């Protein structure tokens, strides 16, 4: 087997290594493929479908699909970004995302993707579901209003922290993140330093007493769209 695999993303010839996913190889070549449930260091989930690209005309999630010689990938096209906008729209209307007072605003990956894709308002009707908040733990809280069910906390706690604190419960619109304990987050052995807390892309799993510490104008996505670091080659290439 050759040491490199040649393929094409949006008319650009790319070289990747055997075993890499499309997303990893693209990132190494300075191409950003939008993603939400993917996080470097976690086992890819392939569930949010934001990273969906067309591979030889077929939709595939770039975070799980391995590269193959000669494949033709369509990523940054009006069609794919339109589909991504639809997913982001749906995520916004099926939760309660009050960006105006959310501690995560400015550092939120869901919001940043909406900014990058140029969304000014979702096209679907808002559902305003009733969701629970778990503020029982002294240092960390869960706000399920903001949860997008990406499963990053589930995987981080299971695979990185080795604690198995979070798991999905229920199906369809009733699906939610629950804790693996008698009752609440306070009954688990989660700690501030857990990767699970860092892994949340939105404001669903947050540390207490550190909100709004970074002023508006200095937050992650205030000036540059999400993915700019990858596109400018600043981000460390994904090599896992």
């Amino acid at each position, binding site marked *: 087997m050759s040491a490199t695999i040649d393929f094409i993303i949006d008319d650009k010839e790319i070289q990747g290594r055997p075993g890499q996913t499309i997303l990893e190889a693209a990132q190494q070549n300075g191409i950003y493929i939008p993603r939400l449930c993917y996080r470097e260091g976690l086992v890819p989930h392939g569930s949010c479908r934001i990273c969906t690209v067309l591979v030889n005309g077929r939709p595939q999630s770039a975070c799980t699909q391995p590269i193959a010689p000669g494949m033709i990938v369509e990523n940054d096209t009006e069609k794919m970004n339109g589909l991504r906008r639809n997913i982001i729209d749906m995520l*916004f209307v099926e939760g*309660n*995302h*009050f*960006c*105006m*007072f*959310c501690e995560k*605003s*400015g550092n939120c990956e869901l*919001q940043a993707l*909406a*900014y990058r894709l*140029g969304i*000014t*308002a*979702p096209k679907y*009707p*808002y559902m*305003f*579901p*009733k*969701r629970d908040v778990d503020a029982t733990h002294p240092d960390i809280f869960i706000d399920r209003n903001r949860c997008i069910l990406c499963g990053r906390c589930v995987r981080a706690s299971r695979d990185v922290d080795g604690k198995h604190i979070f798991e999905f419960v229920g199906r369809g619109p009733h699906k939610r993140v629950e804790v693996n304990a008698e009752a609440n987050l306070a009954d688990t052995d989660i700690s501030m330093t857990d990767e699970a807390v860092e892994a949340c892309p939105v404001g669903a799993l947050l540390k207490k007493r550190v909100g709004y510490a970074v002023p*508006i104008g200095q937050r992650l996505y*205030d*000036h*540059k*769209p999400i993915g700019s670091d990858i596109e400018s080659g600043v981000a460390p290439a994904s090599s896992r």
Partner: protein
Amino acid sequence: MAKPKIATTSLAGCFGCHMSLLDIDDRILKLIELVDFDKSPIDDIKEFTGRCTVGLIEGGCANEENVKVLQDFRRHCDILISVGDCAINGGIPALRNTIPIKECLEEAYLNGPTVHNPSGKIPGDPEIPLMLDRVYPCHEVVKIDYHLPGCPPPADTIWEALVALLSDKPIELPYELVKYD
């Protein structure tokens, strides 16, 4: 040729978006050269005097009066713009949307810890606009042509959008001017 006309209103909003409009500073003098204000809290004209080019809507629809005003704006304005998060997604008033309206009213007028209401009744005077079951974003009530998010949208966002519209150009806002907070 007569100047194009602008109308503005605050539905279930806090007037913060109107403050942001005023925050365009001395450009407001240029705005007055470009347009006339029709129905708006800025000049206190209560009813439409004619057709308007642009209508700016702050706030969502929390009661029947909000809906009537919004429909009135749709009838009178060529272009209707949702300005700010309340108009776009209900905003802070929409925090009540997960609580049944009966519970909201009982908490406000009967059971709340600071309530003083010797009558023991929830106000029901026909003069008071009836509350809706929940707060609705404007685009779920009438057709909205443009959305300017933010809480409030920066003055520059409102200014850039207005200038583009008045000079017949597409609204192309830079990345930093479209924010949800």
